[in-house]
């Protein structure tokens, strides 16, 4: 059995030839993807189709073409779609809140939507996610009084209700301060049951820190799928450090050490090769695709 066949058989989520248009804009253009248990990071610039892809996976959007299956279930079928939703935790990119709700009451409401109808079980589940996200002491606070970072934690908390097997997080670290981002990484890494987690982000360091697999989406197409190390390797031999700016480089910026970092095929004067990072690989891919 070859590696591709094995991957298809063990994949929890499969996407084949997925397309989605908004008017004349093609948001997704023939996306093929397999997601296994563990964390997969979705990297791409604004407008690359990340949110559209995640909303299709979350059964919120209907694709124009192609197939999606999660745990062998087809979201196009009514009963199977509900079954997928029973296993799903979803944090949309722009999650709105009923601002007059308290934190605990909002989570209680979402728990009902997740079919946790028993009152005591709901309270237990709400208490659990409050503890996991560090919001215990804010349980009685009105949502309108929360800071942006706390609201984002509340969004993550609601996604964790019910212990989902498929966790879809659209830019979960947006609005979190560095310490909260570290706590979020710790939280994801410690989730029980080995769920399938897909998170989109602009932060390449989030991907490098917690995602064993990364997918780069550019202009609605998958341009890379592999490990973060493999993404970094795509830039090997094309990242340079120099004291002066090279006008011929594809991309260049000055780092915290005052030295210029160049990404390009030509060797700048007096430059030395440096070890590429995930961000370098991503930037090079973006540049090659003309997405930036």
């Amino acid at each position, binding site marked *: 059995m070859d590696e591709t066949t094995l991957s298809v058989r063990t994949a929890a989520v499969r996407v084949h030839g997925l397309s989605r248009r908004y008017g004349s804009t093609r948001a997704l253009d023939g996306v093929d993807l397999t997601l296994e248990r563990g964390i997969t990071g979705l990297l791409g610039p604004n407008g690359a189709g990340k949110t559209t892809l995640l909303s299709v996976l979350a*059964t919120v959007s209907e694709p124009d073409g192609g197939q999606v299956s999660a745990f062998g279930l087809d979201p196009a079928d009514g009963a199977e779609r509900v079954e997928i939703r029973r296993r799903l935790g979803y944090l949309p990119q722009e999650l709105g809140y009923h601002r007059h709700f308290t934190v605990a009451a909002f989570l209680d409401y979402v728990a*009902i939507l997740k079919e946790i109808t028993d*009152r005591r079980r709901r309270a237990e589940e709400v*208490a659990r996610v409050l503890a996991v996200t560090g919001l215990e002491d804010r349980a009685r606070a009105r949502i309108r009084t929360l800071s942006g970072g706390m609201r984002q934690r509340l969004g993550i908390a609601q996604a964790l209700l019910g212990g989902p097997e498929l966790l879809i997080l659209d830019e979960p670290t947006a609005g979190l301060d560095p310490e909260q981002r570290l706590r979020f990484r710790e939280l994801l890494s410690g989730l029980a049951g080995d769920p399938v987690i897909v998170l989109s982000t602009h932060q390449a360091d989030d991907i490098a820190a917690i995602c064993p697999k990364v997918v780069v989406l550019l202009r609605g197409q998958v341009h890379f799928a592999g490990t973060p190390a493999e993404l970094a390797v795509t830039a090997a031999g094309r990242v340079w450090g120099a004291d002066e700016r090279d006008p011929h480089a594809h991309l260049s910026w000055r780092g915290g050490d005052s030295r210029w970092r160049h990404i390009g095929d030509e060797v700048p004067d007096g430059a030395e090769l440096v070890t590429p990072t995930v961000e370098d690989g991503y930037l090079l891919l973006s540049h090659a695709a003309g997405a930036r």
Partner: protein
Amino acid sequence: MTNSSPGPAEPVAGADGHPGEDLLASYAAGRAGTVDAWSVEAHLPGCARCRAALSAYADAERLARNRSVLLTRAAIGDGGRARRVLRRCGIPDYVLGLLAAAPSLRRSWLLSVVGVLAVVAAEAVAVRYGWIEAGRPSHLGGYPGPGTLAPFVMVAPLLVLAGVAVAFLPMFDPACRLAVAAPFSGFTLLLVRSVSALAAALIPVVAAAFFLPGPGWLPVALLLPSLALSAFALAVATVLDPRTAAVAAAILWLVPVLLLTTSTARGPLLIVQPDAQFVCAAVLCACAVVLYLRHDRFEWGWMR
């Protein structure tokens, strides 16, 4: 203290009248039988020694978890007096939890409805008693001045429709994407919200109609048009955008009412007369059938 079911494998009371160590341990672990647990609980308030002994068996983690759940339940709250009353009426708690997110059940919305009704009702009363100038004199079914009720007849079913529309339009639910991605039936959610909004709006409408100086059948006559309009909006939402559906339903009511008001001296009350009631009943039935046949549209998530 007497053990209810003594036996070699059962926890037993101590010989000195205090619960034995085994009994305290099983009580702390939640394994003691009902009678044993009652005995321990009756004994503990008066015995500091046994309370201290019991604390040695307490599972700190479980206690902390229970405390956390209790605090969370307190933070969630019971939803206030209205929710308590409805719960006593037999409505499941989780259904009431869903209603908490319906804007048309919030106090501010209901006060707005009452306010609008008060204005149009006051206008009708003022015209009827000659405080402000009346239009053309006329009679309908023995009731003088039916034209004075024009604003009320026009507005009352629209208020009911607006309440239902606010309950189901995605633009009024900031967390609508979560509802779409959740396994809870979208159609059930829609019905729960719409029916509760309908009931909440109909109560002040019917109450206001009772107090108006109009025909005695007016409160009942407003029910069918209000129900038909709301059902029409929901049925059309299975085909068109929900907002367009709500606007279409409003136009469907406004146009004939305005035409009747301007074209006949008998005023808009004609639209709640028997012939019109029959039409409303037919529309209501047809919309119910459409809703039943096309409910899958709501299961996919009408809020997308």
